[in-house]
């Protein structure tokens, strides 16, 4: 198997903070690796090292077989980078932004113009191509930024939180673009805080926390790793919730989370459910809702990182987890 991206034991220090603390990564050619983790987990640092923008303090990494430190020029020749901010020159038009990249990559003026036109068409920006980028909407800027990353037809693409701050529709559009690139055989490393994004796009996922990889696998494998199912009980009468909580705590040995009138707990022992039902029946508590389901990626993530979850906020198509107390 050929790895387009490989890293072993990457370390990056900022003062006493270990932004990366021994990270191993391996992305086979043509696959999409989703890098999940809260803010400050080290995702962006890893991308910056792989994209030759930052030197690691320890470990090594290669892209397309070229060492990112010793053969940086070769690495730069084969990668595309789209960062957290839309890194486009706001004063230039869409066409000019892309032409500038093309010219820098050694295309002749006419070639650069042609390539710019192709990409603007592909990203539905053809009509806006003659306008200064500062007049673009957030979604349009991200698309232009992604287009700028593709001028050189990269074999390896780094997408660092490409949809952060985008509305659900723009996000879905960007997902389609990424799928199109994967169909072209491009290897992609995508960082995201959105679990749904990783779930939908990634072939493989690694979970970062505090500069380390704390879990890896396919989305399905990850969902299975905790081995847990999720039990949710909602009593018909709200004032029964403490009682339900007590019962669940007694049986599974840990207090459940209480949200939205429900007691929610992860369960490993299948016998726990009938036991809960019997106890509730004995106590005369009627459950309006009682479900046992597979863990969502969100819950896996929380189980893995062990951080208490902040309130999860629905964002139309997906849910995101905002974490407090994460490293800045």
């Amino acid at each position, binding site marked *: 198997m050929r790895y387009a991206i490989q890293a072993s034991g990457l370390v990056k220090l900022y003062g006493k903070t270990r932004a990366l603390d021994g990270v191993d990564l391996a992305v086979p050619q043509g696959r999409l690796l989703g890098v999940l983790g809260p803010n400050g987990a080290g995702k962006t640092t890893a991308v910056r090292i792989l*994209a030759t923008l930052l030197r690691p303090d320890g470990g090594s990494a290669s892209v397309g077989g070229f060492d990112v430190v010793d053969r940086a020029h070769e690495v730069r020749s084969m990668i595309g980078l789209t960062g*957290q901010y839309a890194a486009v020159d706001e*004063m230039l038009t869409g066409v000019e932004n892309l032409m500038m990249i093309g010219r820098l990559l050694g295309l002749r003026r006419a070639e650069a113009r042609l390539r710019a036109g192709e990409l603007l068409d592909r990203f539905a920006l053809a009509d806006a191509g003659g306008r200064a980028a500062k007049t673009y909407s957030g979604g349009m800027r991200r698309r232009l930024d992604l287009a700028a990353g593709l001028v050189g037809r990269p074999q390896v693409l780094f997408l660092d939180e490409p949809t952060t701050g985008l509305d659900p529709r723009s996000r879905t559009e960007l997902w389609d673009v990424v799928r199109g690139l994967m169909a072209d055989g491009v290897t992609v490393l995508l960082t995201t805080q959105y679990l749904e994004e990783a779930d939908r796009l990634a072939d493989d996922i690694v979970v970062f926390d505090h500069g380390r990889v704390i879990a890896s696998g396919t989305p399905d494998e990850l969902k299975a790793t905790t081995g847990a199912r999720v039990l949710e009980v909602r009593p018909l009468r709200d004032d029964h919730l403490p009682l339900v909580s007590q019962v669940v705590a007694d049986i599974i040995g840990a207090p459940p989370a209480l949200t939205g009138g429900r007691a929610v707990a992860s369960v490993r022992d299948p016998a726990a459910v009938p036991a809960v039902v019997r106890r509730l029946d004995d106590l005369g508590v009627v459950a309006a809702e009682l479900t046992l389901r597979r863990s969502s990626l969100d819950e896996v993530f929380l189980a893995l990182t062990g951080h208490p979850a902040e309130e999860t906020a629905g964002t139309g198509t997906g849910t995101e987890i905002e974490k407090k107390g994460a490293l800045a």
Partner: protein
Amino acid sequence: MTTATMTATTAPTRRVGPVAALTQTATLAWRSLVQIKHNPWELIDLGIQPIMLLLLFTYVFGGAISGSTGDYLQFALPGLLVQNALFYTLSTAVGLNTDITKGVFDRLRSLPIARTAPLSGRVVADTIKQAWAFALLVGFGMVLGFRVETSVLGVLGALALLVVVVLAMSWMSVLIGLRAANPEKVQMFAFSIMMPLTFTSSALVDPRTFPGWLRAWADLNPVTHLADAIRGLLIGGEVAAPALVALAWSAGFVVVFAPLAVRAFRGRA
């Protein structure tokens, strides 16, 4: 995940050739200049602040300082050229810092281009804008009654000297641009250096009127020597001595600030 990984070769990385590096610098200079095409007013913007200062100094202070506005204009225009050029180095700092904070800098550095191109491209573009501002200010000054008492060669010499010294002093601006947290901080920080530096010199008034301690500083101030040399080149007077001191200062600026700026530049890498 064990099977054969791609082996990293040990050959040294390819470098960007000098011709390619020049083309990349030109492309990035074009990037800064092409904005003028969209907004031709920028050409005027470049001149508005110095022209306003020129008008204010000439007509508000001119009479008080030199007894007549005409005499003062003749004295102050060369100084205003210097002051304006030094202030304009801030735009190099602000531009660099904006690129860094907006992520454009990272995008450029992720491309297989000469490492220096993002810096040199901007400096080339700013130098061209400097030359334009110089022409604008001299032209407007002439409309108000400024007379070049030397020759066209003198004017070109003044421009050349100004560009060389300003390029050297740009290293300080580059350092500020690379180090500052955001463009607003650049403005604030650089302004608080440039303002006193240009006012405590012979650029706008004769330092012989300063108190002794300030005069001692003014005699040392590189802006004094640069302003004196430019004045000599435009309206006659001593040139060689002040020009040499200004150039020596420039060399000093390069020696001190270039390595610091390069280090900051690498630190971003």
